[in-house]
């Protein structure tokens, strides 16, 4: 059975001609339809590939029957650098070959995407595109002269196809969000976004860096889009910088942060940072406010032993700082190490029932009898609803 002729196949067997009229510039089917306009970007890509002038490409296209060829508003460039071919490919390509459209202003996303692919600076890419007759709406300021692989991530509004455009207003919320996704400093992200011609509701300041970093963990520790600054972080920044806590809170709000996780006092007490640190050492990680179950009693007891306050005094100060204690909790008058050790084994909150299996687990981990554990947890305010007789048996000494 004879093969169907390929639509729009060229009569010329010249490899250059076949490349020119092939849709994917590979000299093979599918062939370009002469009834459709040839995009200007194709002219440039052919010129780059064959090392011809764009004018020569236009002439040959005409000779091959392609009369309708898109042109830029200005004159044609004399030549196209082969290395620039990458810049002429649309960032919106999903498959096949799609050149950048000269009929519309080149988008910020296109410039940034091309820069990333070519490992060149956005300014360099914009200059090259302008030289080829494209309109690049860079806004008022020049684009950055340094390449940065993160640029594409910075201008990503969401993961489903939306990007920031030239001169768009960007919220602090966006800055915090992208910085979190990219594991980079929100301050550096803000600076770079401005360099890319975007507008922010605040002027980034180097001091923001300290305000926005609340933990020292690999690649992060920055306050994120939905995170709120722990009170201790604000107090620590105030101590380190001499700025009033209220000033820090106001600046964090400008930067897009949520309200602080707790009450920020006008004046702090000497051991506030100790009370507000997870390890009671006055350093990160800071105590995060728990709005569901409240404070852990073991934290209060440990804090009492370290600061010399009574458990009630610790609870009172932490309450003033916004960390509340569940109403069921019975705070002992003194902080005993045995209670702390016991409470470290309890993973139930005051909202939960403590069952036999939880008591047995705590007994196992503390070396106390289940009966002793059950009695002490009851005294501390936990609910133990199981009607069982808790054994007096002690766990044995563990093998080495």
């Amino acid at each position, binding site marked *: 059975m004879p093969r169907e002729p390929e639509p729009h196949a060229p009569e010329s067997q010249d490899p250059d001609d076949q490349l020119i009229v092939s849709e994917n510039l590979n000299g093979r089917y599918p062939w370009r339809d002469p009834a459709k306009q040839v995009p200007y970007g194709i002219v440039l890509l052919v010129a780059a590939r064959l090392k011809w002038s764009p004018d020569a490409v236009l002439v040959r296209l005409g000779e091959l029957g392609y009369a309708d060829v898109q042109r830029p508003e200005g004159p044609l460039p004399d030549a196209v650098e082969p290395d620039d071919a990458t810049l002429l490919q649309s960032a919106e390509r999903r498959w096949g070959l799609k050149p950048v459209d000269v009929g519309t202003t080149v988008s910020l996303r296109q410039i940034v995407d091309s820069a990333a692919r070519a490992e060149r600076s956005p300014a360099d890419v914009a200059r090259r595109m302008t030289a080829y007759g494209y309109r690049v709406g860079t806004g008022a300021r020049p684009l950055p002269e340094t390449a940065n692989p*993160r640029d594409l*991530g910075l201008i990503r509004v969401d993961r*489903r196809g939306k990007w920031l455009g030239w001169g768009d207003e960007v919220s602090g919320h966006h800055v915090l969000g992208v910085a979190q*996704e990219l*594991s980079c400093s929100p301050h550096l992200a803000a600076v770079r976004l401005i360099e890319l011609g975007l507008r922010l509701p605040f002027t980034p300041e180097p001091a923001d860096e300290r305000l926005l970093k609340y933990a020292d963990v690999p690649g992060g520790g920055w306050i994120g889009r939905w995170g709120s600054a722990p009170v201790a972080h604000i107090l620590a920044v105030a101590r380190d910088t001499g700025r009033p806590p209220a000033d820090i809170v106001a600046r964090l709000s400008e930067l897009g942060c949520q309200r602080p996780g707790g009450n920020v006092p006008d004046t702090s007490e000497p051991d506030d940072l100790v009370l507000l640190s997870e390890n009671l050492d006055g350093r990160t990680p800071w105590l995060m406010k728990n709005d569901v179950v409240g404070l852990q009693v073991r934290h209060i007891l440990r804090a009492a032993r370290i600061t010399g306050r009574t458990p009630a005094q610790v609870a009172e100060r932490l309450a003033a700082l916004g960390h509340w204690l569940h109403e069921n909790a019975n705070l002992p008058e003194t902080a005993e190490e045995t209670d702390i050790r016991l409470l470290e084994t309890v993973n139930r909150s005051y909202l939960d029932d403590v069952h036999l299996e939880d008591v047995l687990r705590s007994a196992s981990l503390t070396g106390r009898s289940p009966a002793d554990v059950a009695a002490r947890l009851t005294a501390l305010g936990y609910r133990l609803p199981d009607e069982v007789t808790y054994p007096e048996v002690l766990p044995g000494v*563990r093998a080495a």
Partner: protein
Amino acid sequence: MSYVHHVERFYGLPAFNFPPYADPADLPPADAVAWRLDREPYENEESAEDCWKRFTESVDLAKVRAIIFGQPWYDGDGGLGTDDLVGLAPRLTGLEALFLGDLEDEQAMISTIYLGDLAPVLAAFPGLRELGLRGGDGLDFPVSGHDQLRVLRVESGGLPPDSVERIAAARLPSLERLELWLGDENYGGGVTVEQLAPLFAGEGKPALRHLGLQNSFIQDELAGAVASATVVPQLTSLSLSMGALSDEGAAALLEGQPLTHLQELDLSFHFMSQEMMLRLWTALEPAGVRVDLSVRHQPEPDDWDEDGFYIAASE
């Protein structure tokens, strides 16, 4: 409560998501973290190919100790697999730990995560000391050739019986910890006690100190086998957690060979009665065995399931 979460620590290192469009200046030292590679399948997400390229260009590969692969290297549709990883073996000279298939429930059902043939990975990294796997679909585990492996953990909602059989029969002379989530036969599982016979006999794994046979409906049968298994005296800890362990299995443990040499016996997530929990605890704890009986469940029989037992992770 789901038992399937992203790995937070691996090989003693904090897991660190290799960020999209990463700038090398922001990255931690190569040997300080377990590198997680994971990309969501969204239009604007950096592609897996670009992510991998950037990872290999920005991280000092010779110093990398642990890598965790998530989506799309592994997923319910087959995934990209580890060809790129295997190809890079000559540069990953310090790699000692791999976790394959670190996906959570909302990314893919655990039973659908395709693992495939592990032989090329194990052959490419003979110095691997820890291997974590999540999924099980298509899992092919070679019987020998990984003498350095210390830890093997397979998290599955339905581990193919022939895969379990091969792992049970595998010669792993350095293996100290083996954890197998056996899963549900409705989701690809269904291993039998007989298929685990080499494991119970202690064959091929002389260094084994921890054995976990978890997350199955046959926990009672497994407990029965453990009661007389030759391997048990060499263990320091044993886990029969996450499954349908009932009073029957617990009684078998109590009536079988002594377990008082164990340091830990993890039976958490179970269906035992309170009486049986107390019997077990009072029998073993005074001897120094730390018994974990937390997360007790009650059977929930209905028209479709007369027994009403369930396991921690299946779909």
